[in-house]
């Protein structure tokens, strides 16, 4: 179809524009840093970072694996707990008066500030990292789940009730479907937050993970390694957001395309 082809061309054009934008930044960085004679330990140029990245690939992979694990486990926990908490306040109305203020108060504590406490409580293993990732990811997932699962147009529920809909059918066929875009949106916010939780946890204690690797780069004034770590983390985040986008493409085909709106 000609329409499809032009859409494809349009997409290719946008990808090309994005890539050339990145390329321009890299070029300016590369030659700008050389021109200003900034030393490598302040701002290494892209080619140096790329080389360092390549040299440390195996170490990067190992530590990224650790960070990816704590982040993913923590985020999975925030997803499960966030959705369950949302369901509890939706179906058991009196709980709202307890759960909402407690969570709001809890959310006002900067979780990063209590990270050292977790080291005291849970040691230097993976547990405090998972816990931090979980706590940071929880709030956005909970809030969006309450909206997505709870704020259904009353007329839709009336219609379902008149047709003889049970609570279970209304849950699976209305609430859950309505919540999908809210939850995928929340994941896009919660993922970077959970990653922050993991990395801060690794800064504070332990001997693995990207946080640890970045710190060791700092101690050795190995700035190219620090930048190489940032590159790894960015690639990982990109992958995770890509997974969420894939889920959206599969489940949210019905959504009007944003460009057309």
């Amino acid at each position, binding site marked *: 179809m000609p329409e499809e082809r032009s859409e494809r061309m349009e997409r290719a054009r946008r990808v090309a524009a994005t890539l050339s934008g990145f390329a321009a930044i890299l070029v300016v960085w590369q030659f700008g840093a050389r021109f200003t004679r900034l030393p490598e330990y302040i701002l290494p140029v892209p080619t140096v970072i790329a080389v360092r990245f390549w040299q440390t690939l195996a170490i990067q992979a190992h530590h990224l694996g650790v960070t990816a694990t704590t982040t993913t486990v923590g985020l999975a926990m925030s997803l499960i707990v966030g959705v369950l908490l949302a369901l509890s306040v939706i179906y058991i109305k009196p709980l709202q008066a307890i759960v909402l203020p407690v969570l709001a108060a809890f959310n006002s504590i900067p979780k990063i500030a209590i990270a050292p406490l977790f080291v005291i409580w849970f040691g230097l293993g993976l547990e405090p990292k998972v816990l931090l990732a979980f706590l940071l990811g929880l709030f956005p997932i909970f809030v969006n789940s309450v909206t997505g699962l709870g704020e259904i*147009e009353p007329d839709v529920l*009336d*219609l379902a009730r*008149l*047709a*003889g809909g049970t609570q279970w059918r209304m849950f699976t066929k209305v609430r859950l*479907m*309505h919540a*999908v875009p809210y939850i995928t949106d929340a994941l896009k916010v919660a993922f970077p937050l959970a990653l922050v939780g993991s990395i801060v946890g690794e800064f504070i204690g332990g001997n693995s993970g990207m946080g640890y690797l970045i710190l060791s780069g700092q101690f050795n004034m190995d700035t190219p390694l620090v930048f190489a770590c940032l590159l790894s983390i960015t690639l990982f985040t990109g992958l995770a957001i890509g997974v969420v986008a894939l889920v959206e493409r599969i489940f949210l085909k019905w959504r009007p395309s944003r460009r057309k709106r």
Partner: protein
Amino acid sequence: MTMTPVAVKVDGLTKTFGTGAAVEDLSFEVRENEFVTIVGPSGCGKSTTLRIVSGLVPPTQGNVSIRGKQVDAPIGDVGMVFQSPVLLPWRNTVSNVLFTAEMRGESPSAYRERALHLIKLASLEGFEQRYPHELSGGMQQRVAICRALLLNPSLLLMDEPFGALDIMTREKMGFELLKIWSANKTTVLFVTHSITEAVLLSDTIIVMTARPGKAKAVISVDLPRPRDVKTLRDPRFLELAGAVRDNIEAQWVE
């Protein structure tokens, strides 16, 4: 007058919200296969009445019974159409029409054929796989009507179903509804504030007064069916519309 059995009986219905009465001592009957319209100004409790009849809202006082059975919970055998189409945005046309079957716990595939038949009847052929945002307002509302009729309900409740549409689409929708209704003769209780719509569609019109809502007059519409565009120019049509208007305007003076 032939004695068709009574389908819906509303008796001494009163509904108060807070301090004021929305509906006060309202009584009327709807006979089997009759198309009854409640017409009245905004805020006269028309929609409230419809919700009470459906069992979604309990009355403060009075009784509603459907085929002799008192209504005290959402009734099953009813199709409902609201002012907004309330389609599920993640479902295409067919799937939205099948929603009522799924809510009842029926297998949607068993109703697929009927769904497609209704969609065709509603002139939505070719739009079966479209999502609601790809349909116009009038089309969306026709999907909602198909959905309400899917399970072949013995009572269809319509709460200003064309109220959100522009005037031209609205007139056309009236004829579409007549077409669908004549193929699925069912008892209809319809709410509107359009006099033209009321006269065109109904067998009987109940004119309600503004707050508190009471039945001011009951008007029988003796226009022959099937009705079409010509009906709108029929002198009898204008006469009946005038009668409805007189009853509404009489309240302005009071």
